[in-house]
């Protein structure tokens, strides 16, 4: 842990049954009359977006934009910002997974800074607030935690990289966690996004910026994942488990939004950019290998996490010196269960990665901001080793 830390979480959380029904009120007190609603085609088709639009009642959206791809890019964000201005919108509502939420953050950045191109605004914690743009986020996956982070990851297609924007002004004013938003998530995606949550919590709990506040958020998230992920995969219609995972995702997001993530995410982002492996799948594949890599310097943190990963009985029955290893074994066991239930890939080979691209993945990973806060020095050779270990 460092000798100084900062913690930001200004977002109001509306969490639980019927949460989306309060949307009209939340918009009213934010002063929004004509929000731009961002979502994607699938959510439009399966009716999730409809639930949100119905909840707007008297509020007339200025524009509903559903043409956001799975990996949103700078061009998409620039285009949406132009439409925001054209249609005279006065706030943002994002209904979707990480890509939609991060797109909304990018749009907010452009509008608030009065800019046209996201490439002009790159950086970390460098921007003043600018014009106020009210922003409400309704996550439809329980994974990225984007509704609670100051981070937006947006693709730069010309460079084949995912660019990171970090600013406290990216955090939504309100995050709405409603079980109806995640109820229809298929088991395979529930598993994959749930492992992303777990990765956020474990990396947040072990990175250089860890602090007592982010630790509390991360530990709670791990416990909720432990108790609910497999259940939600088995019985997706359970409101309680869906809510538990949505809360876990938010908690883990708030944790890593402040203490940041490390080598697992650095490599995961690179695998996404270079090999197009979905983020959650990459996290699931990389988590044990990343933990083993960091174990040397994270023994205490991983040991403490055993309490949340396995419960008090196992924690107590395990010798303190063996707790870190047991934590890693618990993660491996969870992965195995999810693999059997949903076919979630355990190796990069199963995920279709081309090992010939690994040097490029490693090079890209080293330039990811997450490497700098990883507790152990990340080198090209170390990343190559992790990739090879995860291949089959």
């Amino acid at each position, binding site marked *: 842990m460092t000798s*100084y830390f900062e913690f930001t979480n200004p977002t109001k959380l509306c969490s639980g049954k019927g949460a989306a029904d309060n949307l009209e009120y939340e918009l009213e007190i934010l002063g929004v009359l004509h929000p731009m609603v961002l979502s994607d085609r699938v959510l439009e088709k399966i009716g999730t977006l409809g639930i949100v639009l119905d909840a707007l009642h008297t509020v007339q959206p200025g524009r509903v934009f559903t043409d956001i791809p799975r990996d949103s890019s700078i061009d998409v964000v620039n285009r949406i910002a132009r439409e925001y201005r054209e249609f005279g919108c006065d706030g943002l509502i994002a209904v979707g997974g990480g890509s939609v939420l991060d797109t909304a953050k990018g749009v907010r950045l452009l509008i608030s800074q009065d800019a046209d191109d996201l490439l002009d605004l*790159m950086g*970390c914690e460098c921007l003043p607030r600018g014009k106020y743009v009210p922003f409400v986020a309704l996550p439809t996956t329980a994974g990225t935690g984007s509704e609670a982070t100051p981070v937006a990851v947006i693709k730069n297609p010309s460079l084949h990289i995912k660019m990171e924007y970090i600013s406290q002004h990216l955090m939504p004013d309100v995050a709405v966690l409603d079980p109806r938003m995640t109820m229809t998530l298929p088991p395979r995606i529930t598993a994959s996004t749930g492992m992303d949550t777990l990765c956020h919590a474990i990396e947040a709990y072990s990175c250089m910026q860890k602090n007592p506040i982010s630790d509390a958020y991360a530990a709670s998230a791990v416990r909720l994942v432990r108790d609910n992920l497999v259940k939600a995969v088995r019985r997706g219609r359970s409101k309680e488990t869906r809510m538990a995972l949505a809360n876990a995702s938010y908690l883990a997001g708030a944790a890593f939004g402040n203490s940041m993530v490390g080598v697992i995410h650095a490599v995961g982002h690179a695998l996404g950019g270079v090999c197009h492996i979905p983020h959650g799948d990459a996290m699931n594949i990389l988590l044990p290998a990343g933990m083993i890599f960091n174990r040397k310097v994270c023994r205490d943190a991983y040991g403490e996490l055993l309490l949340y990963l396995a419960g008090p009985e196992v924690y107590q029955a395990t010798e303190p010196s063996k707790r870190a290893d047991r934590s890693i074994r618990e993660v491996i066991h969870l992965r195995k269960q999810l693999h059997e239930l949903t076919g979630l890939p355990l190796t990069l080979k199963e995920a279709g990665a081309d090992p010939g691209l690994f040097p490029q993945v490693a090079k890209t990973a080293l330039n990811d901001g997450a490497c700098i806060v990883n507790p152990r*020095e990340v080198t090209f050779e170390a990343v190559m080793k992790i990739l090879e270990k995860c291949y089959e």
Partner: protein
Amino acid sequence: MKRELMNQADRIVLEVLYRSFRVLYRKDSRVRKEIDGWADDLTLKLVCGFGGAVLVVRHDREHGIVKLKRAQKADITMRFKSVEGAFQVLSGQKSVADAYAEHLFFLEGDIFQTMSFVRCVEYLEGYLFPGFMSRRILKELPGKQIPALEVYALALLENGN
């Protein structure tokens, strides 16, 4: 007064940093490889707190980096929030990674390209600070390709412009 002293020290260390960078561009293959990977004419600015010392450099194929006039807006700017914070890093009390984790500085520009610069600074710290200091602040000692004394000597002789 204390602040002014730190400012002076920051200014001196920035000059040492600049000269050593140029030396290592010639003498350390890892630093050379990093810098050769930078975009042509990439400009980089280091600001040591409000009203503090400033270094602006441009990527140069021959010397690695060359110094520019301070007023220039750069592609990448690393701006320390305070003179005190900058001093902690430049005097070897904190690594760049610690400084980042403690929000001592913020970045304007592409985070990806900045990481290469950070790695160069870590190589440099391995030369400039005595082992006991680098061991305390760096996660791993980066190793040296020439003796540290040689870097100091060459930096002294280095043409500052």
